[in-house]
């Protein structure tokens, strides 16, 4: 007998089971988000849309707006900081330089958010590295406030997002046809004109996906705003945690978590549409 699809069920079953568990977890969040909050109890009441209506208050809008703003700043600065590194990573002539750049830019991805956030706390704190150095150099008398500021949060978030941004940009830059750049030079374009008119436009899909991925990623950042923002800077994740673990309002925490999920999915859908359109126009790949 011919087995048409060997191993089909065997290999499918565990994947389906995993997907069901994952879906159940997300469904629980959804389910809690439409439940009534019973103050003083972890049990929840009947169905309601009250939690979603509650979002419509200035204080919560402010947190949402701040989350968007911080994510956007992070995405833009991450792009600006990552492009030169990605370009160097792809175009360096020496093999060891490329390997070193890959290692230096990728390994931070794997040290985990707590280690990285803690490192930035030591760097940005009042007695931290930056203030100590500035004082040693005689540039400042009083320490400058970097912790618990939006600036400090963005500085740390940009550094976190750079490995991912660099990977996406490096892939895009590596796909640029070097002959196109040579052709532009041959037609009289100076090195800077070659970059602005040929290289940069051809890496536009990579740039856009980088921006959106980092934007979505930062929207769901938790530990950095939690520790470096220190409660002074609240992003939606911190608000959800606060509602869930301090106020013990699980339904509202669920609603906020769900909104964060929708925002992340929304930005990704947006990216797919935009890059899809650009790629069709370029008809590359």
């Amino acid at each position, binding site marked *: 007998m011919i087995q048409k699809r060997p191993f089909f069920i065997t290999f499918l079953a565990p994947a389906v089971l995993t997907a069901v568990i994952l879906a159940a977890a997300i469904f629980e969040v959804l389910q809690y988000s439409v439940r009534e909050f019973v103050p003083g109890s972890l049990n929840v009441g009947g169905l309601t849309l009250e939690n979603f209506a509650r979002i419509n208050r200035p204080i919560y809008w402010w947190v949402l707006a701040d989350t968007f703003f911080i994510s956007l700043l992070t995405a833009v600065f991450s792009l600006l900081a990552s492009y030169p590194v990605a370009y160097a990573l792809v175009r360096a002539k020496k093999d060891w330089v490329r390997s070193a750049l890959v290692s230096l830019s990728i390994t931070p991805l794997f040290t985990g958010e707590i280690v990285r956030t803690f490192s930035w706390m030591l760097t940005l704190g009042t007695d931290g590295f930056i203030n100590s150095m500035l004082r040693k150099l005689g540039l400042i008398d009083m320490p400058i406030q970097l912790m618990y500021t939006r600036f400090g949060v963005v500085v740390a978030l940009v550094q976190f997002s750079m490995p991912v941004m660099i990977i996406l940009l490096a892939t895009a830059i590596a796909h640029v046809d070097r*002959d*196109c750049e040579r*052709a532009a030079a041959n037609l*009289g*374009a100076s090195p800077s004109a070659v970059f602005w008119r040929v290289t940069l436009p*051809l890496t536009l899909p990579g740039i856009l996906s980088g921006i959106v991925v980092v934007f979505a990623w930062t929207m769901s950042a938790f530990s950095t705003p939690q520790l470096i923002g220190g409660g002074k800077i609240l992003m939606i994740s911190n608000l959800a945690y606060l509602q869930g673990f301090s106020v013990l309002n699980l339904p509202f925490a669920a609603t906020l978590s769900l909104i964060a999920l929708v925002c992340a999915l929304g930005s990704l859908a947006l990216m797919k549409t935009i890059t899809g359109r650009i790629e069709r126009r*370029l008809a590359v790949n």
Partner: protein
Amino acid sequence: MTETAIIHPSKEAGSAVDIVRVRKDFGSAVGVADVSLTIRNGEFVTLLGPSGCGKSTLLGMIAGFVTPTAGKIVVDGADITDLEPYRRDIGMVFQSYALFPHMNVHDNIAFGLRMRKLPAAQVEKEVARAIAMMKLEGFEARRVRQLSGGQQQRVALARAIVIRPKVLLLDEPLSALDKNLRAQMQVELSELHRKTGLTTIFVTHDQGEALSLSDRIVVMNKGAVQQVAAPIELYRQPANGFVASFIGEINALPPGRCELKDGTASLVLPGVGPLVFPTAPATGFAPGRQVRAFLRPEHVRPVLAGEAGPNVVTGKVEAHIYQGSHTITRVVVEGIGLVETRVTGAEIVASAPVGASLGLAFDLSEAVLLDTAD
């Protein structure tokens, strides 16, 4: 390579490109070895050779993408060896065309003019002229990826000639096209060259393209120039064994000695006997000289076995390679080795089956005599 194969740079008026003892080393390997070459104004010169022979490296050095290890390159009397590519005013068509995928046809062609900061009106005028010349009317707004291979080729040409380059470089521009289109584009390239009068340097590994298009062909191998000659001369008088066997098919006879007896010139092959030159002997003939004779398959005529005559040897048919209009028959001749003969039609396949013996008449008047060392 022989000394005479190098054309030393001349200071004659009208030379467009002077390549003077240019060398390129890649680490310890030699990419291009001390090449000197003068290309005249308006000439169509082809760099021909197998892959890795250094022809593309040489082209890259003229365009400025490869820096020579030594030597200099002079275009229109100006030394451009150290000039950046974008200041050279040399047009180039890339093997992959390298059309900008994010621009339409019009903007691709206008790119070089815009880089030269020409006024918009003049850009439009020049682009329109180039578009008309390359018969691309109606395609201005098309994305380049929507074009066929032949159309992409025309855009690449238009983009290169619109800047009125001092020299036009073509890097295997026909290799991406299918056979029929390739033939048509050869005709168009010829026509373009006639119309524009542009000094053109064409790189290819296809001898057919080289023979049909060029004023002169530069045959390269292992980084060195083997011969520089017009196509007909190259085919009839290859300078050495490499050129002889690289251009077309050729039979290499074993080394023999030239003899002149009673006014009859002949070539004595050990173990075969004398082969007689029917008319005046070929160039390179000198009594007593050891030579190798090279003979094209069309100058070897099959004769019936046993038919005696001058210059007839007999061998055993090894294989027939039928090629439509003609058939190549491989015959093993004792004392000579494998000899190919080329006749029109396919009758020989039946008249001299594989394994049968076949006589071959050598027409030595067309033979090329070369030093045994070559």
